[in-house]
């Protein structure tokens, strides 16, 4: 079921380049997840894989299938849009849960709630 042999040379080269770049970014993100010390620093690392890493893999997919089918294949754009729009929701849930916990425990690393006009 592999069509790799039918892929013209230039497309195979570009596809491989973008795939490797995307994979390298996702890997760097995972290493960051391991290396960073605090929770808030750690959440930054995987975003490498979900932004440019994902973009590179999708570009690779577009090039490969456009070359194979001799017509532009663009529906990968939808994946990029859906991922970009939904990632903040999960991230906010995670960070707000962490923030709530840290504030309850009285950690001095996180900032306290901003003072409100009607606070007594």
């Amino acid at each position, binding site marked *: 079921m592999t069509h790799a042999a039918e892929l013209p040379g230039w497309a195979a080269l570009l596809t491989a380049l973008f795939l490797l770049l995307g994979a390298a*970014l996702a890997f*760097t*993100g995972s*290493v*960051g997840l391991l*290396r*960073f010390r*605090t929770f*808030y*620093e750690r*959440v*930054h*690392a995987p*975003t*490498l894989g979900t*932004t*440019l*890493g994902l*973009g590179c893999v999708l570009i690779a997919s577009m090039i490969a299938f456009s070359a194979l089918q001799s017509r532009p*294949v*663009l*529906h990968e*754009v*939808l994946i990029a849009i859906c991922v*970009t*729009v939904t*990632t*903040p929701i999960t*991230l*906010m849930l995670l*960070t*707000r849960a962490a*923030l709530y916990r840290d504030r309850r425990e009285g950690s001095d690393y*996180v*900032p306290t*709630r*901003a*003072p*409100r*006009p009607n606070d007594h």
Partner: protein
Amino acid sequence: MSRWLPYPLLSTGLLAMWLLLNESVAPGTVILGGILALGASWALIALRPAKARVRRPGVAVRLALMVVADIVRSNIAVAGIISGLGRRDRRSGFVRIPLELRDPYGLTALACIITATPGTLWIEYDSETQAVLIHVLDLVDEDAWVRLIKRRYEQRLLEIFE
């Protein structure tokens, strides 16, 4: 116009998505997609979401291109930090940014931009104090970050949504 097409932006978006998913612009696909897009926007009337108004499409396109460039740049920066190429004394921390942006769609767009660029993270928005708390991986100067977010993104989002 408003009766037959209550949410023009949403309908256009749905139609574009339908055409992309089907990978064709044949008349049949366009008609079916159009019917679905209209039907979905009529169904949405029941939920009464606030209407989004995009005032300056030109600015929106330029902002989108700028964000893509920023995403690439900050990916490289964060990859550098992770692989230990950055300075040794890197410090991360929180920054509170007062916002003038009130429109919920504008705030959503800003949240997406800030989360999509690695190195900055949207933590919480306080609607009472109208300030957002973000976490920055490589924090050198807090005021510089406040200026950057306000000038680069908020200014343009204000033009687009308010």
